[in-house]
Each structure stands twice: as C-alpha cells, then as structure tokens.
C-alpha cells in the first residue's frame, strides 16, 4: 500500500508540476501583458501607439512624463493618493492589530460578539450604503475632503485586518507573553516589543490587500470629492480623457506613474509574506 502510494506519487508530481508551470507561465503572461503595453506606450506619441502598437519605443523620449508632471494636476493627485492610502493603511493596521490582539488574547464573553461584529463588516458591500454614508459624511462636515475617503477606507479595511491579525496572534504561543510578563513588561510593552515584531508578516498582508484597492478606488472619490485639489489618481486620470480626443501617450504615462508606487510596495512587502518570523520561538 505504502509502496504503491510512493511509486504513483513519485510519477504524478512531475506531470502535475509541469502542468502547474504551464498554467503559471500563461497566467503571468496574461497578467504582465497589459502592464508591459502600458509602460511601452507611455514612451510613444498617440500616433506611434496606433501605428506600431507592439514596437519597442525610444526610451529616451520622455515627453509624455514631462507633460503629465508639468502641465497637469497629476502631482497633486499623486500626493492626495499617497496621503489617503497611507493614512488609511496606517489606521487599518494600527487599529486592526490592537483589536485583533484584544480579540485573540483577552478572554471575555464579549470577545466572540466583537469578532462577529467585525466579520459582519466583511459581508456588507459598503457601496450599497453609499447614500446614507454620503448623508453621514455631509453631517460630519467631511464631504469634499481627504478625510471622507480616509474614514471610509479605514472602516472598509478594518474587518479583514482584524480577522487576519486575530487569527495570527492566536497562533503565537501564549508562553511568550507570560515570559515577557515575568520579565517585567507591561501590557502595551508586550504588544510593542514582543508581539508586533512577530506580527510583521500578517501586518504586511493586511496592508497590501487593503492598499491595492484603496489606491485604485474610483468610486468613493467620484462620489465624495468635487474640488480638483483633493482628487486622487484614478479620478484625476479621467480628466486626461477628452470629450472628443484623448492623448493616449500622456494617459499611459499617467497610468504608469500611478501604478508604480503600489507595484513597488507590493514587491517590497512580498518578502514579509514568505518570511516565517516565528521559526525558533517554540520547538
């Protein structure tokens, strides 16, 4: 029985691994193709894009970027996107970790209820509630400000962050906290010096999986923001699309700039995904 299983399993993985590789390569091609076209097109004029859509451009031709950064409000949109995404992620990770720690570690009857309350947030698409949300933000005098986006995104992102952090913090050995308690650490100190350094991988996951949709979000800025100075990138980029003509080269340059930070963030944090920080904590 065992021999049979090993002989068949030693043959099967090869074909399975091969198939997996083919699927993964095809998938990366599908994923990367639009990105590559976008970057290449950013270095072409609109005419060149339509004449030679697949040709390699002259990479020294950075007129599109100069125009986007110099003649449009793109830098302001960019700063707004950074402020809104950065502040939202900071709030989500900080509050999510604190709530997750409380849910995971302090035993009380309300714990399950609080966790379920957060989880309920995962199941409600907030876009359905956009009208009450609009009225609420209007009454709070937050409409047409960056805060309207920050508080909305934080509310949307918290449930998943709490869920991820609580799940991870629960898996950390309680003896670590006991050891810190005996060593003389206060509760905030245990959180800061012992748990947080270990919780970096799930925090990275919570940060990235929230940062990408927030950075890309078009819906809420469209509803909440009217003033051009407060617009974020996705909303701002639409101003490049004219009613009759569109400068495609400029639009692709804008898109490339818009996509760059989140891509870099993803590459930077993806190491944290893989890193097993608790190796060696317990045997």
């Amino acid at each position, binding site marked *: 029985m065992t021999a049979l299983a090993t002989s068949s399993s030693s043959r099967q993985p090869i074909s399975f691994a091969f198939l997996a590789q083919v699927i993964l390569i095809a998938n990366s091609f599908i994923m990367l193709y639009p990105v590559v076209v976008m970057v290449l097109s950013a270095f072409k004029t609109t005419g060149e894009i339509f004449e030679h859509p697949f040709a390699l451009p002259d990479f020294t031709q950075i007129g599109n970027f100069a125009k986007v950064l110099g003649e449009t409000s793109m830098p302001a949109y960019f700063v707004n996107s950074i402020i809104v995404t950065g502040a939202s992620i900071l709030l989500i990770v900080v509050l999510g970790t604190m709530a997750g720690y409380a849910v995971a570690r302090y035993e009380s009857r309300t714990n399950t209820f609080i966790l379920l309350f957060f989880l309920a947030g995962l199941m409600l698409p907030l876009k359905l509630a956009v009208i009450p949300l609009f009225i609420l933000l209007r009454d709070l005098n937050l409409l047409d400000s960056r805060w309207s986006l920050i508080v909305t995104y934080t509310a949307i992102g918290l449930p998943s962050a709490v869920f991820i952090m609580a799940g991870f913090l629960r898996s950390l*050995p309680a*003896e*670590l906290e*006991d*050891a*810190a*308690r*005996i*060593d*003389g*650490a206060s509760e905030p*100190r245990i959180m800061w*010096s*012992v748990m947080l*350094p*270990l919780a970096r991988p799930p925090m990275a996951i919570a940060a990235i999986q929230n940062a990408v949709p927030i950075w890309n979000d078009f819906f809420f800025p469209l509803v909440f923001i009217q003033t051009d100075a407060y617009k974020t990138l996705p909303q701002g980029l639409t101003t490049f699309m004219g009613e009759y003509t569109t400068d495609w080269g400029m639009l692709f340059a804008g898109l490339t700039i818009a996509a760059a930070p989140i891509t870099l963030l993803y590459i930077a944090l993806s190491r944290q995904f893989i890193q097993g*920080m*608790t*190796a*060696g*904590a*317990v*045997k």
Partner: protein
Amino acid sequence: MANVSIRDVRKSFGSVAIIKGVDVDIQDGEFVILVGPSGCGKSTLLRMIAGLEDVTSGDIRIGPRVVNDVPPKDRDIAMVFQSYALYPHMTVAENMAFSLKLKGVPRAEQKKRVGEAAAILDLEKLLERYPRQLSGGQRQRVAMGRAIVRDPQVFLFDEPLSNLDAKLRVQMRVEIKELHQRLKTTTIYVTHDQIEAMTMADKIVVMHDGIVEQIGAPLELYDRPRNLFVAGFIGSPAMNFIEGRLEQAGLALPGGVVLPLEGHVPAAPGSELTYGIRPEHLQVAPAGAPGSIPATVTVVEPTGSDTTLIAKVEGSHLTVALRERCALKPGEAVALKPLGQQGHLFDDQGRRIAAA
C-alpha cells in the same frame, strides 16, 4: 533567596476545581519538584506561584510577603517555560538582557550580567545568534540564562526538559542540578517524569487530581509510599500490585498461593488488601520454593546492565528486575520469591498499612 510557603491554596476555573487545597513548605535554597500525571494541577500551581494565574483562595508567600495580588514582575522570580518562550526576533544576548532593559539597568551593567550568566552556561559564543539558529539544548540554556541574569529569589521550571531527546535530557538534568548547587537559589520544578523528580529533587511533592498525595525526600517516597498512587507513580519499572485476602497464614493470592506475612498487620482477617512489591525485590527461585509465586515468563527485556522479566501470574502480570543476565525464555515456568519485608500492604482505601 527565600522560602516559599503555600497555604491551603485552591484554584477553580468556573465551577471546575483544579487545585483542591494544597499546603507545601519550601525551605530557602531547596530544590523542590512537583510531580504528577498530566492534569494533576502541578503546572497550574506553578503558574500561580509565578503570578500568571489568580489564586482562588489560600495564601502564597515568597519570603515573608503574601504575593497573591502581586504582579509577576514584582515577585522576584524567574521562570523557564516548556517551550523556552525565547523571543524569536531578539538575539541570545537581547533575550537575556530584556528584563534588565525593562528595569532600566544601565547598559554596561546589563552587558556584565549577561556575560556572567553566559559564562556559567557556556553560551558566550552564541550571544549574537537568534533562537532559530540554536539547537534544542542551547535554547534551553538560553532560557535558563534569561532566568539567571535576573538573580531572582526563586527559580520556577515548567517541564523544561520535555522537548529534548532522551540523551540531552539526561545531560541537561545534570546541568540544572549543578547550576542549583552552584547558585543555591530556591527552585520549584514541575515535571511529569518521575525519574527527573527522583534524580534532581531535594524534596518531591507528588500531586494527583488537585491534591498533594505525599511530600518527602526521593528515597523516602520510594521506600515508604503513603498510598497506592504514590507507590505506583514513583519508580521505574513500576511497582507490582497483587490483590489478596488476609488470612491466618498470610495473604491469600489468586490461584491459591498464600504469601506468609511477618510482623503485625493492622487489619481484620478476611479483609481485602493489595500487596505491592518493587520489581527489584522479586527473585527467581527454584520451582515450588516456599513462599514463592508460580508464574510464566512472557517477555524478557535485556538492557545490558540489567534484565527486565515480565511474567504472568494468576490474574495479573509481574515485572521482575534482575541485575544479572538470565537465560529464561518466554513460555518458561518460574517461581518468583519476594525478598523479606520489602513489600507493602495497602488497605481497600489504598492507604499503606504495613510492610510485608
């Protein structure tokens, strides 16, 4: 250093009583081992001494002070955990210095104390490593180092060796014992392994089901167990037990054998008693020898230094530990003769009533 006194301590989780009134006195500098099967409450008791669990009722004193409501960090104790609980993101030196850092000890002093502890435990070359880069035994030593740098009144060990392999366990056992002899700090050590308890302790506290069954020096418990539980728990291989009935001529065992009893037995004739005899106190005798128990060999386990014989008697099995090698084979008939006055008699409540 300090003595520790535990007075009528109880602990319940909700309506479930885990510790049902425990009294233990631990002298200054003593090495005390709490031993018992899993679930007996020994770890809970240790965690109560550490301040990691609340005391439901009773008093715990460290030195002259009742510490029931004192937080762990102010009890002047250090604890070594079963999983070592080393901070994975800190180096060995940082792990050991963490408590000093929290106390605000100056950096130079921290370094000096970590250095001293590292020297004692032979950790000097590992100070810059991370826990994941260490072997099990090294991690264990770092965990002890973390306890030593604090120079506490009391060391608490919670099953510190149970994650190590057998050989390393024996080695660390010796190291912990040597460390105690050197530092002379009061030590409370929890284990389920009675060999650890026997070899390391000045005093053993045998716990079972939330109560203390017996407290005493290792050989005292071995030679004069107060009841059936202690008799069966302490000693490896475990003590043999045979049920019998007290008669005029001695103890009538199943199968018609009557074991002659010397001395006075404080029980009424006809009462049901349990006879206990340690494996090394049984001898292989010529068949039919007076006072011997006829048996059939089922298993022979030669370990080199001695031989363990498992033999079937009427209604049960007996284990015999022989110092000499033996040529017996499974299936052979033997006669087993207890050495005089080395056995124990227990009444129907499990209390030891006499030697036999």
